[in-house]
């Protein structure tokens, strides 16, 4: 039913198919989309070029010979299987933490009146405003002086805290105010009749959150999941800083092997980057399937 409604916005496509405006629009869209794809294409095409072709001038776009062996050679340059697994665990962990606690906080900020709510909300926004580079040293110190972990005493002295542990990789980056903020906005856009009805029915807030509202914001859940996963997948500096062991390192650290002070091994770097990007593209394709009318008429008369 609601699908039919959406179609009304694109009123009877058949009749308009040869409309000049529509063709112009398609052209603009197609051109825009093309400019967005070019770097991605370049990445893939470069990943299969041989060294001799890479230095040609003017640079070629389409490879003359497809050196697929670059992929095997790139994968040999670092323990990518381990890195891949680690990145996957971390990104999944961050996504789960964010989806549960971020959505919960976002809901409370949007729909539950409590004193100090506005202050908490502005606090979350304010926390986005300090650049990583100045926060990172204090964050590192908190990890290192985490009491009772890694040989530390109750005051956090004597050991290495969370350094070289999964805790350091999973917890500090687990939740971003960005996600909380986004969730809040989505919960905010839903009608309030739902909560009033549910509260009158005697439902607890956790159930209203989990059973009434959250199912209605699947597009938001998909968006946040996608962005969170991708953010932590691309994380480089933090995992490098808090670990010293190779078996805890992540995929971006592996890719850094191809970029050295004076030279970059372009073909390998692009081969590795392509492999690192494909899961993200797949994830997007899965996530965007949830971009369907989340708003059902459930509960509204």
């Amino acid at each position: 039913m609601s699908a039919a409604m959406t179609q009304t916005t694109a009123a009877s496509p058949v009749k308009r198919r040869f409309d000049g405006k529509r063709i112009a629009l398609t052209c603009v869209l197609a051109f825009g989309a093309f400019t967005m794809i070019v770097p991605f294409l370049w990445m893939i095409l470069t990943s299969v070029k041989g060294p001799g072709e890479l230095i040609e001038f003017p640079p070629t776009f389409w490879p003359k010979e497809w050196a697929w062996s670059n992929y095997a050679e790139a994968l040999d340059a670092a323990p990518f299987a381990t890195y891949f697994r680690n990145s996957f665990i971390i990104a999944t962990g961050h996504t789960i933490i964010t989806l549960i606690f971020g959505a919960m906080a976002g809901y409370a900020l949007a729909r539950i009146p409590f004193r100090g709510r506005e202050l908490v909300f502005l606090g979350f926004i304010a926390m986005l405003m300090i650049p990583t580079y100045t926060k990172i040293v204090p964050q590192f110190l908190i990890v290192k002086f985490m009491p009772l972990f890694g040989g530390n005493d109750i005051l956090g002295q004597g050991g290495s805290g969370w350094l070289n542990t999964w805790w350091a990789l999973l917890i500090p980056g687990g939740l971003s105010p960005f996600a909380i903020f986004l969730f809040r906005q989505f919960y905010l856009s839903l009608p309030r009749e739902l909560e009033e009805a549910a509260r009158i029915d005697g439902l607890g807030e956790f159930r209203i959150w989990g059973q009434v509202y959250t199912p209605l914001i699947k597009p938001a859940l998909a968006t946040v999941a996608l962005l969170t996963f991708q953010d932590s997948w691309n994380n480089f500096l933090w995992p490098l800083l808090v670990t010293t062991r190779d078996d805890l390192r992540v995929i971006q650290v592996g890719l850094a092997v191809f970029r050295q002070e004076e030279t970059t091994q372009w073909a390998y770097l692009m081969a590795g980057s392509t492999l690192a990007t494909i899961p993200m593209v797949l994830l997007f394709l899965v996530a965007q399937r949830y971009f369907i009318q989340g708003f059902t008429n459930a509960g509204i008369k």
Partner: protein
Amino acid sequence: MTSWTRRGAAALLAAATTSLVLAACGDDSETSSENGSGDGQVSGELTVLTPIFEGAEGKALLEEELLPQFYEQYPDVTVTVDYTDYGSLNEKLTTAVASGLVPDVMMMGVGWIEAFAENGILADLGELGITVDDLSEDFTPEILAGGVWQDDLYAIPIMLDTRFGIARKDLLAEAGFDEPPSSLEELREYAIALTERDSGGQLQRAGFDMLSMDLRQMYEVFLFAHGGSLFSEDFTEPTFNSPEGVAALQYLVDLMHEDRVEDIGFSSTDIDVHPLLNDRAAMAVGHNNLWIQLQEAAPELADQLVPFTITGSEPGMFFGGTLATVSAGSDHPEAAAALVEFLTGPEAALGANEQRGNVPARTELLDSEYVQNNPLVQFAMENLEIAQREGGVPQWLEIRGDFTPAIEAALLGEKTPQQALDDLAGEAREAMAR
């Protein structure tokens, strides 16, 4: 009531913050006062932070080939290696020092030692039995000086990155020159002759490429060639704005604007291919590891690349590099010193250099097969006695970042060379006074 709690919470946070910082500092001084008790048997668990030996290949070299030899000599020592890349070395070192968990052995660059030694983070290797005199047979004095701070040795070089002139023999020959230029006048003359533009004035080939190299390091080559220096002998004053320094920058500005041997934007440090390799430049200030790129991408040019020293009142050549140090807070200083000696020793250093295409710091390695088969590295090693380094003052890390914008300002004509360097010297003086 709420305001009370809020204030209380704020106080708590502030206290937590300061205690973190204090704890970090406290930790630092505490550990640095500790001294190893390793009389007799050298033992302990060592941690190493290294930006070299990177990738699976480097790791295999270090942990499967080299370290087993070290363990044979020191069976009671174990080594854990933390690999990083050069781009993140600052961050790794910084956070390590801040938290007090400093690796026993750290590798760092030329120009860094001064700051870390000044702040008491590095162990004086002399106290661990390694002195400048011991090493003076194995290294040239200027190379060793990169590891010395106030007459004490804090670091031993492993590998060098050198910058010097590189020319394309075939392109020189086309223009009727048999040899690379031997003076600044010749360099200018050759560069003009070798520059090619199309009918529209578009630059097709730069006679002399200055822009593919980090501008600071490129300038330093010319500063040294003009007989200038970065700082006074006692390292109390910047001297790059001396007449020699200004003449060096003026020379570069003239090459760009009067002689038009290259245009702004023709090349940059971001380029993926060095212009010497695809005929877009006939001469350049180059790095020794250009040879690696050549072997991969354009092996047919192997006979065509000729290195030369850029020579003004004296020959100018620049070197940076990687040195090994021992943490002042190490629990096992003897073991750490032994590891540093091993890593900077001929075999380990040779392997590390070969992997990166760099110049071994040890003089004896000139005869090695690797060096003999790499003309650029061989050239660098044969000329090590003229190579000069950057740094010298503990504030160097603070000053160096301002060089590139200053040189850009001069090359773009926004400032005269004198102005640009005077302003830069002013900033340097401020930093040194802080």
